[in-house]
């Protein structure tokens, strides 16, 4: 997956360069050989490839965020390389940057993260059918080590998050106008997952630093954010708080400290409850290994939530063939009305 993505980036980057760069004359000489040719892209690809093995060491687990080379740079390798290629694209790319890429991954002192998470789910798919009344997902995993349990480091903690699809939310606030309550101010919250659950082995604020939580978006307060609302309203925070509060009341946002069961620093498991009022989409499940308040490793799984059967049919018909849907609804109503009337007439005889 990651490799494909990089390829794509490179492939896209190369023609873009070829188009934009000809203008600066100075850049041209180095530029043309570097980017315009497909071989070069391929030449670069191996470079990425060398970066990859580390990412691929454990992929038996799954295809999500592969374990990362070193713990401070725990930010996904993907974005790392992405920005690299990006900067390459803007600055005059010289032959050097590519080789420079080379030593970087190699320079990683540890061959792989000393501890890696391998995760699984009791089910990857949740079907919303007519009788759907919520679901419980069993999230489990193990810690893979090449070396014995590090003794000098702090205790191991596990944080598991499940995040529903993010949809923009409009939050409206009521105010009393002329004696009645009217929606007045409103704010758009751009980033608010429709569902968010955190389960941990200990108090979230204590086992992770603020920065780590912010970096990995762990915890509702770090996940529900707003980008544009600041200009619209004076106190965007109160609108964000409202989203969190309302969704917590609906059991859409949950925080369950101490609910992850960790056995012998190796096996962990927890149960995540998905309520009945779910939105369709991919629910990203991340499992973090934490030591000394830092994320050591992360692995990802996806729960797919889909309407199914009749529910699916109704939903798609309503949205894709609204007229047909409306007529069908009417016919059903008319038939029911007629049938009831006839049935009663029959009964009276």
């Amino acid at each position, binding site marked *: 997956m990651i490799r494909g993505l990089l390829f794509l980036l490179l492939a896209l980057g190369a023609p873009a360069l070829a188009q934009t760069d000809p203008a600066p004359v100075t850049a041209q000489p180095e530029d043309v050989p570097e980017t315009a040719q497909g071989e070069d892209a391929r030449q670069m690809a191996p470079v990425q490839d060398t970066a990859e093995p580390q990412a691929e060491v454990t992929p038996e687990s799954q295809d999500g965020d592969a374990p990362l080379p070193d713990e401070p740079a725990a930010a996904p390798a993907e974005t790392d390389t992405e920005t690299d290629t990006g900067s390459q694209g803007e600055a005059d790319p010289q032959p050097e940057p590519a080789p420079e890429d080379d030593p970087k991954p190699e320079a990683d002192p540890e061959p792989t993260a000393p501890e890696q998470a391998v995760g699984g789910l009791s089910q990857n798919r949740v079907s*919303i*059918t*007519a*009788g759907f*009344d*919520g679901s419980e997902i069993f999230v489990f995993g193990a810690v893979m080590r090449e070396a014995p349990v590090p003794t000098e480091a702090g205790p191991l903690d596990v944080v598991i998050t499940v995040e529903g699809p993010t*949809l*923009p*939310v*409009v*939050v*409206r*606030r*009521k*105010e*009393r106008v002329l*004696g*009645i*309550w*009217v*929606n007045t101010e*409103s704010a758009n919250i751009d980033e608010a997952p*429709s569902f968010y659950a955190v389960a941990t082995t200990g108090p979230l604020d204590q086992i992770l630093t603020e920065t780590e939580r912010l970096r990995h978006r762990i915890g509702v307060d770090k996940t529900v954010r707003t980008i544009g609302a600041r200009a619209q309203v004076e106190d965007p925070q109160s*609108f964000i708080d*409202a*989203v969190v*509060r*309302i*969704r917590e009341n609906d059991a859409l946002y949950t925080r369950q400290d101490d609910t992850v069961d960790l056995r012998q620093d190796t096996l962990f498991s927890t149960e995540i409850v998905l309520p*009945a*009022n*779910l*939105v369709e989409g991919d629910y990203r499940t991340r499992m973090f290994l934490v030591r000394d308040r830092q994320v050591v490793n992360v692995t990802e799984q996806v729960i797919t939530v889909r*309407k199914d059967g*009749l*529910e*699916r049919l*109704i*939903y798609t018909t*309503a949205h894709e063939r*609204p*007229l047909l*849907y*409306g*007529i*069908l*609804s*009417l016919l*059903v*109503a*008319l038939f*029911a*009305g*007629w*049938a*009831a*009337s*006839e049935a*009663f*007439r029959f009964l009276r005889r």
Partner: protein
Amino acid sequence: MQIYLPIAEVSVNAFLLLGLGGLVGILSGMFGVGGGFLLTPLLFFIGIPPAVAVATQANQIVASSLSGVMAHFQRRTVDLKMGFVLLAGGLVGSALGVRVFTMLQKIGQVELMVSLCYVVFLGIIGGLMFIESWRAIRRSRKPGARPAPRKHHSWVHGLPFKMRFRQSQLYISAIPVLLIGAAVGVLAAIMGVGGGFIMVPAMIYILGMPTKVVIGTSLFQIIFVAGFTTLMHATSTQTVDAVLALLLLLGGVIGAQVGTRIGMRMKAEQLRILLAIMVLVVCFKLALDLVLTPNEIYSLTTGAAH
């Protein structure tokens, strides 16, 4: 038994919906009202998103009104000619109303407008009807008192384009009939109601129709207005929930049959005063909600489509 509603995207108890539909169906058959003015607030209350409640409601009204009107047809208490004229106005009003609804939805004032409409209209109509029917009942209790003269001539009877409505024993202008139809159409679309609770009093008091004919005729035209509203909502806002509608109308059609039979056994004044009391109770409850400080002053709307 919980059931997941595909458009509303919430899970609710199926029997609760059947029961609600049945209750409203009874009222519908008794009074010739669609029952939407009761059901829509009740649906809000059990957590159905307002937009879905309003649109789906219209579909349910089609079913219970047809069920009711068929019972009335058997008793020849439907004025078809009057119904069609009302309908002509109603369709125009309904198309307009759906536009207004879509616009209100965008600016986030649907709930307020719906509530305000309810309070204002229910208040006025309920109040007037209550006073009138109270007087009628008192008059009828007096020994020897004759029923109030029905055919009083008002401004309505002075307008041009007169038509004869045989079933209603009326010879009046088509203009007020069209206007009433249109006004009801607009409200039907915005409030998710058939408009019966406005239509019925208007026909009795403005047009001067006999109460027995009013109910059947009102139901007759509501079928079309509500049907049209359903189609408009299905195509423009996509908020008609088929599963919700089905559950409501299953209860509704049965209730309507029962209600029609109860209604036949009651006196016109009694029917009117009961309807008036019901309308006033709903009105009072909604007014209270507008004025009292809500528990949660924030509300969420997800996605751009809603």
